[in-house]
């Protein structure tokens, strides 16, 4: 072989190399020039479309909720663009939405998979922000993910409309200026559940907690423990279980001989389906302890989980953010258009995501701009009605929504495959309100 390619450093070669190196060195500034031209992240400018990012779990233990969230997002985008029957756009007031997109721009969307993991969720949110150039990120079905993505959004200057996240931390110690939560939290669940538990199970009970080992589980355990101890209950033990464990038998067996007579499952999604089904299989519900019937409580309930757990769910108490059986105008309109589109009623995860998308769009209309600090200001302290749960306030101090909370029970005699939860009590907003200072944390700056 004779045609050896050899690089020798002639003067010409050196010049070429120099030019190449110069180009390489200049690349960052070429890209940064773009960055300086815009006054905020992903400014749509004169484009005729805006893009929203829906970052939901499509795999992992919370994927059922994620898929339903995605359906709701698609429906919300449709309604915002004036397609379909308009859903809650007709009942939401005060509303600045016109059904012609947002600020005259058509709404499009991009999706990402959080995999119910903080790492993956942040990577996918980064892709949405950097590649898809979305104006807002919404979705998520785990508080760990919500907290992680929320802090990323604060750094990047993109509004985050949290999906299903129930931990006190999301709007408590980990709250952020760019993050907003419509969903209720563990503290409110405790407040709402307390009186019902007292009425049903009395003042002398011994509770055993099984808790998902992450931010949501920790805060829910704490809130429920505080509530029940106020009632006079004892807490026998609190045991942490890994998320996505699959088999909970090793955690349930010790419950049998612990002297407890109530099992509180701080689990969600497939974890809750598995732990509850196994607890029922182990005969916990037929058991007598301390002369009382053994009871199971699932503080955070959803219809999708009830569907997965089947008969095990019957008669079990819990709380939920929203249920499709609500009779108010807004809920009815939403259930109707969701049902017409997908042939099944929406879950509470779907409801909160749909509402969040509308609220963001409305805030942009009210602010008259997509500039995040202004959008944030119009969301802070915003009061609205007609989105289910009655009159609702987005509290300015911690970006938490306040509305009525539903205490539900697994339906003993369901009339249809979706009629799984029966509303026991609609706890009024005043009863679940609290001082925002109790959880600490700081919102941070408007401008980043």
């Amino acid at each position: 072989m004779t045609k050896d390619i050899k690089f020798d450093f002639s003067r010409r070669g050196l010049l070429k190399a120099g030019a190449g190196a110069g180009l390489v060195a200049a690349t960052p500034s070429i890209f940064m020039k773009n960055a300086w031209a815009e006054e905020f992240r992903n400014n749509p400018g004169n484009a005729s479309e805006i893009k929203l990012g829906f970052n939901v779990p499509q795999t992992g233990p919370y994927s059922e909720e994620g898929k339903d969230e995605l359906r709701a997002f698609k429906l919300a985008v449709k309604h915002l663009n004036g397609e379909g029957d308009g859903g809650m756009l007709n009942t939401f007031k005060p509303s600045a939405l016109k059904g012609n997109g947002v600020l005259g721009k058509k709404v499009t969307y991009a999706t990402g998979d959080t995999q119910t993991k903080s790492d993956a969720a942040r990577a996918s949110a980064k892709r949405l922000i950097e590649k898809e150039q979305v104006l807002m990120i919404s979705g998520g079905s785990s508080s760990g993910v919500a907290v992680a993505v929320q802090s990323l959004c604060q750094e990047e200057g993109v509004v985050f409309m949290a999906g299903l996240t129930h931990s006190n931390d999301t709007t408590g110690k980990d709250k952020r200026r760019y993050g907003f939560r419509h969903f209720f939290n563990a503290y409110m669940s405790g407040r709402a559940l307390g009186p019902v538990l007292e009425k049903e199970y009395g003042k002398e009970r011994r509770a055993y907690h099984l808790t998902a080992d992450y931010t949501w589980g920790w805060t829910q355990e704490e809130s429920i423990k505080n509530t029940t101890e106020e009632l006079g209950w004892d807490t026998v033990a609190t045991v942490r279980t890994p998320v996505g464990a699959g088999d909970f038998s090793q955690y349930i067996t010790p419950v049998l001989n612990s002297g407890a007579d109530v099992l509180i499952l701080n689990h969600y999604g497939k974890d809750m389906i598995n732990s509850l089904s196994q607890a029922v299989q182990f005969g916990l519900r037929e058991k007598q302890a301390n002369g009382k019937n053994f009871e199971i409580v699932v503080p955070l309930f959803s219809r999708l989980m009830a569907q997965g757990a089947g008969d095990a769910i019957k008669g079990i108490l819990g709380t939920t953010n929203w249920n499709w059986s609500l009779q108010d105008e807004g809920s009815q309109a939403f259930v109707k258009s969701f049902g017409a589109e997908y042939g099944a009623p929406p879950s509470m995860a779907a409801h909160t995501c749909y509402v969040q998308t509308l609220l963001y769009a409305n805030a942009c209309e009210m602010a008259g701009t997509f500039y995040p600090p202004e959008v944030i200001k119009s969301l802070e302290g915003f009061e609205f009605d007609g989105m289910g749960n009655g009159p609702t306030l987005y509290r300015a101090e911690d970006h938490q929504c306040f509305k009525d909370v539903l205490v539900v029970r697994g339906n003993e005699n369901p009339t249809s495959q979706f009629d799984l939860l029966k509303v026991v009590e609609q706890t009024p907003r005043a009863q679940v309100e609290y001082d925002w200072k109790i959880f600490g944390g700081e919102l941070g700056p408007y401008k980043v």
Partner: protein
Amino acid sequence: MTLAKLNDTNRFLIFAAIILLMPIWMIPLGGAYPDLLQKFAIYGIFAIGFNILFGLTGYLSFGHAAFLGVGSYAAVWSFKLFTMNAIPAIIFGVLFAGLLAFIIGFLSLRRTGIYFSILTLAFAQMSYNLAYSVLTPITNGETGLQLSQQDPRIIDSMFVEAGAGLPSTNLFGLKMSGFEGFYFCAVMLILCYYISMRIFRSPFGLMLRGIKSNQNRMMYTGLNTRPYMLTAFVISGMYAGLAGSLLAVTDPLAGAERMQWTASGEVVLMTILGGVGTLAGPMLGAGLIKYFENIFSAFNNQTLTEIFSFLPDAAVEVVVPIVGLFVGSGWHLTLGLLFVVIVIFLPGGIVEGMSRLAGLFRRKDQENMNGTASPQDQPGE
């Protein structure tokens, strides 16, 4: 092939140019955004380091993600306790990963072959479970270790007043997210490539290759192979620690998932896909997998319909659902198929594929020159 004829300096320069120009040539491939580019560089480092162990000595570690995770945690703690500067974070990441590698290596290297792999896997799973539940005060468990307003940041607070928001990672004032972060990672990658090249060419590297081809014979000559193996293992672990700390530098969060066995398996895939024992192969494999993970997984039926819009409508309705199985959340399926094809037909990975292609062209030039050498004998890189 022509590439094989280049000397090391030139090959290194070409490599550096390709890496640094990535933001430009990735544009048509849709991958020219900082997050993905950072991942390319970081996982490139991870794979290159893994290859020093697996490629040179033939010891297959199934627990390298543990070092990646430790690197991340160490870096985030450095951000929390000392300063937001990237340099100390990297130093801590590498040190702690090296330390852990020394301990795990010291114990695991008593065995060879499959037993070694199982031991490393077991240690990595132990580290994962420790990070996930037992060590929650240090790792914050499932939620992941994050920065907070209340962190002491001793060194930073001596010089500047804390701002209203969370501080961001920096290199003496240069923000480490976006393209600046990528260039920082890219420089690290080039540095790592250079070191790895020097190791491959050194007597130490030759010794490691000797161990790979016949460890018994090496021992008969009166050589104690253990220190060599341990050194290779620790170096490889430090590479992983560097990659882990860079992950934290570009995005200051460390989650336990980084240590899971799937992450360890991923780096094995990367290395095999690219070409075991070659210099550039693992880097290629890492790039390919990360590209698939980020670009392919984001495809949905909507994008597919756009891509196939040139077909008649009836055909689109058939093609889109079928192709849809392989993209989006089904990207693992595509990756799996690709992996099977490569392992069966190109045991030397992408690098072997490229040299075969080059060989084809060359044969056309010189019909009756030397017969093709068997793939194993080819200098892959």
